[in-house]
C-alpha cells in the first residue's frame, strides 16, 4: 500500500467568473520530494497555487493535505497547517524592514517566543547573508534578487511542511537564480518538500524529482523529471529547441 501523499489535488477546477482557468487537474506531492509544475504564460500555474492556498478556492474538486480535505478552509488556516507559499512577484511588505518581514513570516507561530524567532532569523541570515546586512532596510528598497531571497526567507520562518514557490527565478540575474536554486536544494535536503512552479523548465526539472506540465488549465504530461528533460515535446515547447 502506497503511503498517503502529503498534498493531493483531485479534479481541481478553478474559475474566474465564467472563465475556467484550471480545468480539473490531479497532482500529488509526496513527503520529501521536489515536484515542479511547468508551463507557459497564462497556463494556470499561479491559479493552481492560489487554489491550494485557498486564496481563490477551487470551484470543484478537492485539495487534500496529509490526507485531510482542506478545500474551502480559510487561507490563514491553510498556512496554519503548514502549507506556505512564496508568491509570484514576491509580495514583500514594502514599508516593513527586512527583519519585520521575517517576523511576519513567523506570524502563525509568533506567540511571544522571541527567542525561538531569533534562532530562525539567524538561520535565514545564514542562508542569505545579504539579508543580515540589510535587516533594518525597508523591504521595498531591496533589489529584485534580494526581495526574492527575503520572500523565501520569510516563508521559511513559518517552518513549512510544504514549501510552494511561484516562479522564483522570474526576472533575476543568472547568479541570483543559482543562489535561489541552491537554497531550494538545501531546504529540501533538510526534509522540506517543495512544489516549484517555473517557466524556466531547465532549472526546474534539474532541481525536481518529478514534474507536471500544464497547458491552458490542463495537465498534459507528468513524469520523472529526467524523463521530462528528455521528452521531445517538452524540449520543443519549454527548452527552446527545434
Amino acid at each position, binding site marked *: 500500500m502506497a503511503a498517503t501523499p502529503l498534498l493531493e489535488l483531485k479534479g481541481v477546477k478553478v474559475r474566474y467568473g465564467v472563465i475556467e482557468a484550471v480545468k480539473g487537474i490531479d497532482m500529488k506531492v509526496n513527503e520529501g520530494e521536489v515536484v515542479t509544475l511547468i508551463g507557459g504564460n497564462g497556463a494556470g500555474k499561479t491559479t493552481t497555487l492560489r487554489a491550494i492556498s485557498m*486564496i481563490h478556492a477551487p470551484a470543484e474538486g478537492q485539495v487534500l493535505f496529509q490526507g485531510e480535505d482542506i478545500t474551502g478552509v480559510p*487561507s*490563514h488556516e491553510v498556512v496554519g497547517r503548514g502549507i506556505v507559499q512564496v508568491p509570484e512577484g514576491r509580495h514583500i511588505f514594502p*514599508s*516593513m524592514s527586512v527583519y519585520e518581514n521575517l517576523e*511576519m513570516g513567523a506570524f502563525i507561530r509568533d506567540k511571544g517566543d522571541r527567542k525561538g524567532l531569533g534562532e530562525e532569523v539567524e538561520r535565514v541570515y545564514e542562508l542569505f547573508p545579504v539579508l543580515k546586512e540589510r535587516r533594518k532596510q525597508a523591504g521595498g528598497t531591496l533589489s529584485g534578487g534580494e526581495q526574492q531571497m527575503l520572500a523565501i526567507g520569510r516563508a521559511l520562518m513559518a517552518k513549512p511542511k510544504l514549501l510552494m514557490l511561484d516562479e522564483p527565478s522570474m526576472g533575476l540575474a543568472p547568479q541570483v537564480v543559482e543562489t535561489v536554486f541552491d537554497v531550494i536544494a538545501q531546504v529540501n535536503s533538510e526534509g522540506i518538500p517543495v512544489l516549484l512552479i517555473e517557466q524556466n523548465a531547465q532549472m526546474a526539472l534539474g532541481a525536481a524529482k518529478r514534474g507536471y506540465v500544464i497547458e491552458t488549465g490542463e495537465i498534459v504530461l507528468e513524469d520523472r523529471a529526467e524523463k521530462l528533460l528528455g521528452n521531445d515535446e517538452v524540449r520543443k515547447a519549454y527548452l527552446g529547441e527545434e
Partner: protein
Amino acid sequence: MDCNTGAFPNLFVTGLILGMLYALIALGYTMVYGVLKLINFAHDAIFMIGAASIFYLFGVWFGLNEPTGGVVLVSLIAVGFLVSGLASGGSAVLLERLAYRPLRRRGAARLSFLIAAVGASFFITYLFQQDFLLGTSEHNFPGFMATESALTIIGAQVNNRRVLAVLTAVALFLILDFFVNKTRSGRSIRAVAQDIDAARLMGVNVDRVVALTFFVGGFFGGIAGFLYGMVFSKVAWNLGFFPGIKAFTAAVLGGIGNVRGALLGGVTLGLVENLSTLCIGAEWKNPIAFSVLVLVLIFRPTGILGEGLSAR
C-alpha cells in the same frame, strides 16, 4: 484688513486643542482606509455615540451633574474613557459586520462601499435624533467635572477640561504608535494595509484584522467624542457632523492611511482655521479650512506625509 493680534494666544491654544481632537477622530478614518481603502463616512456617527454613551451613563442613569473631585473624578474619567471607547469601538465593529463585510464577501465595487458608508452615517445619526434616543434638542454634558482655569500658556487661560483633552490625545497617540509598530496585532494591521494577499499567505486572518482596525479606530473616536462633549459642554444627535468632516479633512491633509499624518493634519487644520480668524471674521473659518485642503491636494495629492499605514 486689520488684525486682532491680541487674540493670538487664545486662538493658537484653541487651535492646538481642537486640532488634537480632530487628529484623534482622524485616526478612525485613516486606519480603516489603510486596511480597506474605504472612507468610513459613518465614523462621525461612531464619534457621536461615544459622547452619547457618557450622556446616558453619567447624565441620565447616575445623574452625575454636580462637580466631583479627587479620586471620584479620576475614576469617573477613567470609566468614561472605557465606556465611550467600548461603545464606539463596539458600534464600529457591528457596523463593519453588518454593512461592509457582506459587501466584501461579494467583492463589491468601491462605490458600493462608499454609498453604504454614507447611508450608515445617516442611519445612525438620524436614529439618535429620534425621541427615544437623544431627540432633536441639544443636551448639557454631565457636569461631573467643574470647568476651572488650570494653567496659562503664552498668556492664554486654558481650562482643566481642555488640558485633559490634550493630555489624553497625546497619550493615546503614543499608545497607538507603540501598538501599531511594536506589537504582533499592530504588525498584522500594517501587513494587511501593505499587501492583503501577502498578509493572508503569512496566516493573517484578514477578517479579524479588519474588525480589530474598526475597533481601534472606533475606540479612539469614542474617547474623542467624550472629550469633545466635555470641552464644548454639549451632546446632540448631530455632534459628529462638523468634527467628522474636519477630521476627515485632517486625515486627507496629513496623508490618509498614515497615523502620523492624522496627527499632523489635525493640528495643522485646527491651527489654520482658528488663526485665520485673527484677521477675518469667524464665519470664514470653514471656507478657509477647506481651501487649505484643496491647496494641499493640488500640490501634494497624497497629503503632507503621503499615503500608507505603513509609514513609520
